[in-house]
């Protein structure tokens, strides 16, 4: 990789460092190493004018994912959306930010709606148009779980993208089954003997998707655009049910600075708490190695939802989170 001529100020020096870690600011890279998102030919699935919060990870993730899908299908995609932030901030009546055919039906049924669209394409013999379903973690792991499992079972030709920000952010940050243990939400406040969300057995949907042995499962993160684009492209090369879960920081729900979204996404991965991997037909085929391992505290301290964890009284919870990171590192061979 050749480095561009370095700009003079310190601020731009920092940008340059980030480029080296494959983050979004890669316009400084040689053309062949740039992501599609960095080019003027990007697809623009979501136009400007949407109402997402500053620093919204989901807005970035959705755009990167759908732009890639548009590119590889020559703009032949139809998207179905679960109720949630993405749905609300992209379609404030009477405007829409979508430049693709898009439907929102309900909170818990997006997988079935997408399956219905795929069934129509099948009945009409349309093999070029592809279908994408998207929802947040609540719409995926909780209320939409049954429909999603049915879609997996039937191996319907749908790519399901879950934007995981670990809670019901659209309704005011309540706990979902994807909320990390210990995290503060408005229904799991940091009070009492066990502050924050309980450390349950969890409901890690990528593993559940793998158990359905669908053709392709992947996890991705908004900080690594190359990896994200590659995984979407790969997913679109398969027929049948596919699942991609993208880790998307939420400044509102996490209590983080909007400017730290990309950094949080990155150190979430590098702490081992957000494993990135791929699986085909139920078997793990690839995992993204951690480049610079960071302690989990570094990730937690940037988020007010974990503030209580870092207090001495809750050292047990911190230990539990450390153990989760270690287990991920071992299970998905992240080092």
């Amino acid at each position: 990789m050749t480095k561009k001529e370095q700009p003079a100020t310190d601020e731009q020096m920092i940008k340059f460092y980030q480029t080296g870690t494959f983050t979004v600011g890669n316009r400084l890279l040689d053309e062949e190493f740039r992501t599609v998102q960095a080019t003027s030919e990007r697809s623009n699935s979501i136009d400007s004018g949407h109402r997402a919060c500053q620093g919204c990870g989901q807005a970035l993730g959705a755009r990167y994912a759908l732009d890639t899908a548009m590119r590889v299908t020559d703009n032949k995609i139809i998207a179905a959306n679960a109720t949630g932030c993405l749905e609300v901030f992209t379609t404030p009546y009477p405007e829409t930010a979508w430049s693709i055919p898009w439907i929102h039906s309900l909170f818990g049924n997006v997988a079935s709606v997408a399956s219905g669209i795929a069934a129509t394409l099948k009945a009409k013999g349309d093999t070029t148009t592809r279908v994408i379903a998207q929802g947040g973690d609540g719409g995926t792991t909780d209320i939409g779980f049954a429909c999603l499992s049915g879609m997996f079972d039937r191996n319907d030709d749908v790519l399901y993208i879950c934007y995981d920000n670990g809670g019901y952010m659209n309704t005011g940050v309540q706990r979902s089954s994807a909320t990390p243990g210990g995290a503060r939400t408005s229904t799991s406040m940091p009070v009492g003997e066990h502050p924050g969300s309980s450390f349950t057995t969890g409901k890690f949907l990528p593993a559940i998707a793998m158990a359905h042995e669908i053709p392709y499962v992947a996890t991705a993160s908004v900080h690594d655009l190359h990896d994200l684009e590659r995984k979407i492209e790969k997913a679109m090369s398969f027929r049948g049910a596919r699942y991609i879960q993208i880790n998307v920081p939420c400044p509102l729900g996490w209590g983080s600075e909007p400017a730290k979204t990309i950094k949080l996404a990155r150190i979430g991965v590098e702490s081992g708490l957000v494993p990135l991997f791929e699986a085909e037909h139920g078997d793990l085929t690839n995992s993204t190695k951690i480049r610079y391992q960071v302690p989990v505290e570094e990730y937690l301290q940037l988020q007010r939802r974990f503030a209580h964890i870092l207090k001495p009284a809750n050292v047990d919870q911190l230990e539990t989170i450390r153990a989760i990171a270690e287990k991920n590192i071992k299970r998905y061979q992240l080092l």
Partner: protein
Amino acid sequence: MLYQMSGSIAVAKAIALCRPDVVPCYPITPQTHIVEHLSVLVKSGQLENCTYENVESEFASMSFCIGSSAAGARTYTATASQGLLYMMEAVYNASGLGLPIVMTLGNRAIGAPINIWNDHSDAMSVRDAGWIQLFVESNQQAVDVHIQAFKLAEALSIPVMVNMDGFILTHAITRVDLPEQEQVDQFLPPFVPRQKLDTEAPLSIGAMVGPDAFTEVRYLAHHRQKEALAIIEQQAKEFAKIFGRDSGGLVKSYFSEDADIVLVAMGSVIGTMQDLVNDLRNEGYSVGILSLRSFRPFPANAICNALKNAKQVIVFEKSFAVGMGGILASEIHMATQRFVGDKLIIKSVIGGLGGRTITKKSLRKLIDSANKNELDDEVFMDLDGTTVVRELKRQQEEQSSGPVAENILRDIGVVSASKTH
């Protein structure tokens, strides 16, 4: 061509004649035989270019319909009872989005207590959901009205529910005249969607609508249903021209114009009533029947017209609003108040709940009482008063008197006394 077959098989064959593109299904008694037979028709290649899918719940089934209809497919499914309730959120969504899905409801009671038999509680539970709701009296009408349902749904871009009494019609084997494919093709042109998810002309469906426009969107749904009143009548005429049969329409009168006492009802009970009215008219009674074939839209004008000479109306219905009474009776009351005034006597009869047999004998008793001006304003036909009183007494005497359903089953001897809780 004439066949002797079950109502369910006849409906499945009628649906196939309508050339649906997508059919998701989930089993629930008593509609199951319809989707079973459609599965055979698709799998064996008799129904071509149709995607048939076994989905994991009724909620998924209606959601699947929403997706396929929005993508431009002629879409069909069937359900009943608990299944309809389980898909309820999507039922409202389908009509709200204006998607012309056709669904058969094999009418069945709603639990608890769980009950698989026929009544109209399921249909009445969605009376405000924005679907067109048609009722059929016979299996011939079931065939004919399903064919009209697609045309109606697609003309207005609203979903249509064809209500067909579970077991009484679905499982009954009767003579049915199945139309020829050419006739159906002549009546029902290919589906041209009003809105469609299309990569060539991208649009967003299902955006959030705030207080500034919600009233207008809802009013238009109401307006479309009112438009349906004329279209239903017109399509029934067009149907008669091509198929040579009277089927469908808003209401059907059976001597109601020149009768002092008119029975008003929906569905298969009309058949038993006709048999009774034939007997009674031979005996000199002035009795008629008004069959309500369209419940939504509610044909208030047509009802008033048919009842304008009646002295007494007995509204017979297979469901009721607990704590209020007869649903159809109160709607008929409201409609006729406006046009006929309050000189018309309206009696409410609830019967046939959870599959209780509706006998000619019991219906005759109603007419006899009405004839003597002795019919109560609200009657639960064939209610076992002794059992009810016994349970009320038990509840009065004992705080922990136990589950009502089991107590009553024990009283009437269905559950043996030794098997108490």
